[in-house]
Structure formats: structure tokens, C-alpha cells
């Protein structure tokens, strides 16, 4: 499977999915003009990846902020990943938030807890690194 990449815009995050490395990154800001159309592309790529019955996937999310529509779309993707995790794929979710950003941490926890079969790590990072 080929790498799947969506370049960042002023309103949408950079999405980089490297199936060979079993890694997915979502970074930047997320309030796309059409949330559904944006994230459905990633969903399609992930579904294709899982047809190969992979053993694992590492997902890293580092979003400065995301709107409520994006929260719904991320929830959708994590729920989908949760189903594959329940079938045996080891899926790790690393959600990066700022040091001392309690609100960012809470949002990450709330969304991630809807996908309990993923191995969640919330990592704190400095402002400059996001």
C-alpha cells in the first residue's frame, strides 16, 4: 500500500500515513471547510490498510485545536480503530498536548476514552515543538 498524505492548509491538519512503517500522524489545526470530506479520505486509507490484517499501528495526534465537527470526525476514526484493536491489532495512540494545557489534555482524554481498546499515551510537549 502506498503512503497516504494530505498536506496541511490554514484550516486542516497535515495527515501522513506510512503503511510500511505502520505509522499515522495528524498534526496542526483542524476546522476544515468540509470536515466529513476531509476525514473520509483518511478513513478510506485506513480501511485499505486493515484489509491486510496488520499486526500493529501507531497513531500520533498533535492538534493545536480542533472544532466540534473535527472532534466528531476524530471520534469516528478512533472508534473504527477500536474495532480493529478488538480483533487483535495492537494500536497505540499518542496524543500530544502542551505542558500544563489542562483543557487540551481533557479533550484528548474524553475523545480517546471512546476507544478503550487502544493503548493511549498523552504526551506533554513544549510550545515550540507543535
Amino acid at each position, binding site marked *: 500500500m502506498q503512503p497516504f498524505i494530505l498536506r496541511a492548509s490554514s484550516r486542516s491538519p497535515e495527515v501522513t500515513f506510512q503503511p510500511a512503517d505502520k505509522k499515522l500522524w495528524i498534526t496542526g489545526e483542524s476546522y476544515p471547510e468540509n470536515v*466529513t470530506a476531509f476525514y473520509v479520505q483518511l478513513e478510506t486509507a485506513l480501511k485499505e490498510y486493515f484489509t491486510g490484517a496488520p499486526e500493529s499501528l501507531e497513531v500520533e495526534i498533535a492538534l493545536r485545536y480542533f472544532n466540534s465537527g473535527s472532534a466528531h470526525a476524530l471520534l*469516528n476514526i478512533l472508534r473504527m480503530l477500536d474495532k480493529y484493536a478488538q480483533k487483535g491489532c495492537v494500536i497505540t495512540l499518542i496524543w500530544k498536548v502542551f505542558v500544563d494545557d489542562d*483543557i487540551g489534555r*481533557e*479533550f484528548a482524554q474524553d475523545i480517546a476514552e471512546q476507544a478503550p481498546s487502544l493503548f493511549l499515551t498523552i504526551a506533554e510537549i513544549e510550545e515550540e515543538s507543535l
Partner: protein
Amino acid sequence: MCLMSSSKKNPASPASASKGQKNEFYRQHIQPVLQDERDSCFHHCGGFSVAGLTKAMHELRGCLVDFPAKFQFNLNAVFIELYQNIEAYGLKLPDGNSEDAFGCITLSGRLSGDDSTENYLRLQAINITCRSDENTLRDRLSTLSSLDRKELAARYRAQLASLAPISALARRRTGLGLLDMARRVNGQFSFTLDPIDDDHCLLILEAEFYDTPLIPLKKG
């Protein structure tokens, strides 16, 4: 008759919307409740469109460029929800010439105190809603403004859990937007809902951010 902005057929440009704001409805109902534009660093009044958010965000960022990132992120996130709320659910000016939802968002505040606890920034959003939605909206906003931080978090989690998978119907309500805003605001999150004629109400949402760093705002 009261029609939601989502029923628009031929969206007009924000420029034509701003011309349309100089009408009687605007002068009578909107102008009196607007914060003074001279006291604000950011002011957008006119048509709210999907594409218009990009430009508005660019201008808002310009005002806050010297603020710490975490402070910017929460304020920006609340601004996005306020803007999208007006764009998706607000009404056009009843006697305006634009088909876009009409609204005003202003960022102003006090940044002159001796210490940061005396300073704040305030986002004020004004839009027109259907009178028939008044009671539902009032109940919802009253409940939200009475919840403490833990209760808001619990409500947000419950709402997330209740959401069905996203569908191709892109403009579905998630019920998360107001909750998201209320959680991000560390000061007052308040509302005013005033009937202005038989068909329309004016909704004013205000979000205040306390502990504001003493950094001069730049005009957007």
C-alpha cells in the same frame, strides 16, 4: 416567516452583506447592543460564510500574535465555534440583500490592570435566530451556564458517547459546539436572548478569558 440560513440558495459575497447591514433592522436592533468598535481589536460584522472563516481567523491571529500559544489556542477555538455557529444556524438580515447568515463578532477587553488577574479579553457574538427556537435555546444555554467545569466535562463525554457515526450529511449538528466553548472559557460564558419582533430573536453570546497576559493587542 423565519427561515434558517442553511436554506440559502445563492450565497452572496461578504462584501454585499456588509452593504446590506446599513438597513433599518440593523440600526434598530443590532447597533445598540454592539460593543464600540473603537474599543475592539477585532470586529467582524456582516455575512458569515464557510469560506469567510479563513479570512476572519487570519485577522484574529494578527491581534493575538504576541500572546502565549496556549492562550491563543483556547480563544481561537472558541472564536471558530462562535463563527461556525452563526454561519450554520444564524439567519440573514430580514431586510438585507445577502443570503449569508448575518452576525457580528468582536474581541475587546481590558489590558491595563497592574496584574494579570484584573485583565480579561471578551469575545462577543451576535446573531439573529428564529423566535420559534427561543425556548429550546434558552433552556440549553441556561443549563450550560449553570454547570461547573466537572459537570461540563461529564456532559461533553456523554454527548460524545451518544454521537452516531458521521455520515455524508456534512452539516449535522453534533451538540458539542456550545459545550466545547463553555469548557474553554475560564471566565464568564453568558448569553442574552431577546425577542425583537414576532419572528426573530437576538442571541448574544459572551465569552470572557481571565488571567490575560499583559500584552498589547494589535488591531486586526
